């Protein structure tokens, strides 16, 4: 049961087997990092001394860790520790599945209160329900719930954690100083390494999950008895321990306080962020950087200037569909596509197709492009008052400026046209 409950924590099968509490007596790691709660030395945060890191990025793991290692050498472990002096030692485990440890992250987004975005393999996956809520409510970032148990295909219509973020959402969060990237696999492995070293903590963890099952089982029994009572079958009530019930999986990483230490260590390292972002970009889409840039600009523009929420647009044959608020509360208003402002033909057939379709479903087709400003750009391009102070902003800006396109974010503005069928002809 513990295995299943932990199954949704982002660890590869091997490392899970090796490090899961159940098998702790047989698999104590010989090379032990410093014991919890002292901050472990920074190098062990990123590269495991033994064992595989993560199965799905094994080919890249070595080069990534080399880059990270190099980066950390320049930083020095002393720097990392000294940057986190004010952090109270987090408790290992939180009884309530809350993001209590991250409550400070929910109050805003100054540079010390960023949301960690774990990159696992080549995806950005969020496991903290409070972060997901915060992003949805305050930033209109919806993502895609994508967690399922492979053996329960009926769950495929109703997915749970983790939440996968699209490349545009990740770029938006970085650019607007809301989040920072974290190597999810390595952070969790490092956390589990701390864990296997501490019997007391492991017992706490096991107790938490055991209690949880007992609680859920008694709840289930109670419901079953009530049901029989209502039907007047009180004499048929049995007390059986092996009644099947749905286990609420503890897949919210807000439970694991000590994980924060490992997630935090990524914040200061801009090079680690670069490596992770390039990993996301490599497989996020087949499109080139230029296309991603165009689409991201539009995504950013609609969110900041109109407070729209954008979802992928395949439903209506566009790049995005745009909602005037939360997609659960509103129908979408716009089907969004991008074109190069100066050179790309919009296409009469596209106007006809999309315009006709959009009008048919009570929407507008929005075509957007980037125009060079004649004077000073007045458009809002960032959530932050001083975006230059944010690492994420600089990272994304640098990334797109390195593509060699001459339309820097500061001297272009987004221009849109709304197209619909005229109602005749």
């Amino acid at each position, binding site marked *: 049961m513990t295995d299943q409950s932990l199954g949704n924590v982002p660890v590869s099968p091997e490392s899970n087997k090796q490090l899961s509490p159940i098998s702790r007596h047989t698999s104590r790691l010989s090379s032990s990092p410093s014991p919890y709660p002292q901050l472990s030395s920074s190098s062990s945060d990123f590269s495991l001394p033994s064992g595989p890191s993560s199965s799905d990025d094994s080919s890249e793991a070595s080069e990534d860790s080399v880059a990270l290692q190099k980066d950390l050498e320049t930083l020095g472990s002393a720097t990392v520790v000294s940057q986190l002096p004010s952090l109270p030692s987090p408790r290992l485990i939180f009884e309530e599945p809350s993001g209590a440890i991250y409550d400070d992250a929910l109050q805003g987004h100054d540079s010390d209160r960023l949301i960690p975005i774990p990159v696992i393999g080549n995806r950005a996956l969020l496991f903290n329900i409070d972060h997901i809520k915060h992003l949805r409510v305050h930033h209109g970032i919806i993502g895609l719930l994508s967690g399922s148990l492979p053996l329960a295909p009926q769950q495929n219509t109703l997915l749970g954690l983790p939440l996968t973020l699209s490349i545009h959402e990740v770029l938006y969060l970085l650019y607007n100083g809301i989040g920072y990237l974290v190597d999810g696999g390595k952070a969790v492995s490092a956390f589990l390494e701390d864990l296997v070293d501490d019997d007391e903590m492991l017992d706490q963890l096991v107790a938490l999950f055991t209690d949880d099952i007992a609680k859920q089982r008694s709840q289930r029994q109670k419901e079953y008895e009530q049901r029989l009572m209502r039907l007047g079958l009180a004499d048929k009530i049995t007390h059986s321990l092996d009644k099947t019930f749905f286990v609420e999986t503890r897949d919210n990483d807000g439970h694991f306080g000590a994980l924060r230490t490992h997630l935090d260590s990524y914040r200061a390292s801009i090079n680690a962020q670069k490596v992770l972002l390039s990993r996301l970009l490599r497989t996020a889409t087949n499109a080139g950087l230029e296309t991603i840039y165009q689409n991201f600009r539009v995504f950013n523009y609609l969110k900041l200037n109109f407070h729209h929420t954008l979802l992928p647009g395949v439903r209506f044959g566009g790049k995005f569909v745009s909602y005037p608020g939360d997609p659960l509360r509103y129908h979408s*208003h716009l089907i969004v596509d991008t*074109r190069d402002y100066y050179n790309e033909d919009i296409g009469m057939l596209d*106007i006809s197709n999309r315009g006709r379709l959009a009008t048919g479903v009570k929407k*507008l087709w929005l075509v957007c*492009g980037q125009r060079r400003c004649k004077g000073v750009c007045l458009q809002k391009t960032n959530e932050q008052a001083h975006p230059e102070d944010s690492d994420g902003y600089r990272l994304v800006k640098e990334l797109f400026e390195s593509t060699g396109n001459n339309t820097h974010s500061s001297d272009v503005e987004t221009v849109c*046209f*709304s*197209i619909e069928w*005229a109602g005749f*002809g």
Partner: protein
Amino acid sequence: MITNRATCIKVRTNLVHYNLWSDVSLVEFEEETLHEKLMLLKGKNPKSEEENSNGYDYVLPVLKQTKLTLQDIDLIFQHLTEMEGYEVGKIVLGIMDFDGTVVYYNIHPGVQKPKNS
């Protein structure tokens, strides 16, 4: 080349005799950035619900194979607004196929709200 006189005349015929527009006239101007002469039709749509812009709509007649960029549309809006002295909030694009079929699409500048949602 965005517009030409022949397309203009055919679309005008369609507007006047099929869609029963009134007061249809030709608006011509030289667009310096694009280095070409543009022609638009200005007229009154009998079924128009909007009461702004003096009741006049502007139609840009084009062929199906015409290449049109965002910049072209942007410049046309700028020019019209300058010429007419008020903010033109809509251009009707009249797309003509070789068989004489004409379809019309509204283009509004900026992000608009759909009418019936």
